[in-house]
């Protein structure tokens, strides 16, 4: 996977009319313009386009090239996120918008959209090692156990470990006034996981794969809903539960 950063200017090769059209058609988010990420699949090739980004990924060979401009440093990371998400899928892995915190040799994985509490839960972890407060790779090991693997995206500093760390608990996070941990049924758990799996539900093949992985993870280890206040005691509850 190769990413080239070019100087931004008139006629920048990382820009495209399609990306500008998509941006102009997109609704504002929190009062700011959104930069839609367009992913088009033709056979095994994905064409990835956004503002200040043009790239391709060949799912058959695992190769790809991204062209980004100095104007937008997030474009390169977006390209690599798409590549990781799509290339993991055939191997039974997926990216999750989640934080992951180690307790002993196991990982507590908390997921949800922005504002759900990923950074907050990580920030309350004290001396526990954090894999990430934003994005985690999940993949089953040879024994079939789901494991959390650190990524380069928003790395939390936990030591790398081949195969990752077994997941003790998958939790849909919500901020609240007291700590509550409630198991979700398989359907609700799968739906919540799907909503936190980026870059997979925009083409039928990857969406089928994402559905299967979300269903399997909701079955084992299962998904709970964690409601918590900004109080480090949440970790005592999690480790005692």
């Amino acid at each position, binding site marked *: 996977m190769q990413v080239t950063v070019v100087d931004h200017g008139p006629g920048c090769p990382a820009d495209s009319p399609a990306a500008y059209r998509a941006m102009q058609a997109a609704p504002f988010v929190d009062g700011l313009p959104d930069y839609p990420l367009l992913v088009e699949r033709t056979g095994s090739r994905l064409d990835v386009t956004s503002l200040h980004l043009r790239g391709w990924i060949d799912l058959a060979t695992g190769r790809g090239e991204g062209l980004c401009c100095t104007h937008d440093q997030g474009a390169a990371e977006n390209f690599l996120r798409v590549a990781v998400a799509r290339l993991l899928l055939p191997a039974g892995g997926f990216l999750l918008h989640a934080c992951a915190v180690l307790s002993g040799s196991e990982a507590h994985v908390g997921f949800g959209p922005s504002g759900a509490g990923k950074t907050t839960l990580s920030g309350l972890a004290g001396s526990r090692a954090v894999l990430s407060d934003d994005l985690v790779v999940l993949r089953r090991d040879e024994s079939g156990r789901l494991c959390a693997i650190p990524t380069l995206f928003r790395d939390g500093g936990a030591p790398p470990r081949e195969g990752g760390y077994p997941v003790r608990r998958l939790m849909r996070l919500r901020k609240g006034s007291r700590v509550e941990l409630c198991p979700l*049924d*398989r*359907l609700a758990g*799968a*739906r919540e996981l*799907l*909503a936190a799996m980026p870059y997979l*539900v*925009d*083409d*039928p093949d990857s*969406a*089928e794969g*994402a*559905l*299967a992985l979300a*269903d399997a993870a*909701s079955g084992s280890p299962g998904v709970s809903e964690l409601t918590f206040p900004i109080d480090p005691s949440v970790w005592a509850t999690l480790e005692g539960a």
Partner: protein
Amino acid sequence: MTTRIPKRQRSSASRVIDGAAVVIQTKLSDVALLNEVGTLVWGSIDGARSEADLVALVTESFEVTPDQAARDVGAFLDELAAASLVEFAT
């Protein structure tokens, strides 16, 4: 009775989890959960069964009159078409 024959669009992906169909409209990255009747109808859309066949299936499977089933199935198919999840052949 209309003779519409619904066919799933290629842009959809679905899976039945715990008896309920989870349907993804990939062009919109939109996820929908179907109820029991919707799951039966969605699972029976194969490009060959007509709307009348689906109404008969619902009438056989649930305690509902043929008229009510026809209204419900018709409305559901219209919703699926509006969401670009199915297209019709006649």
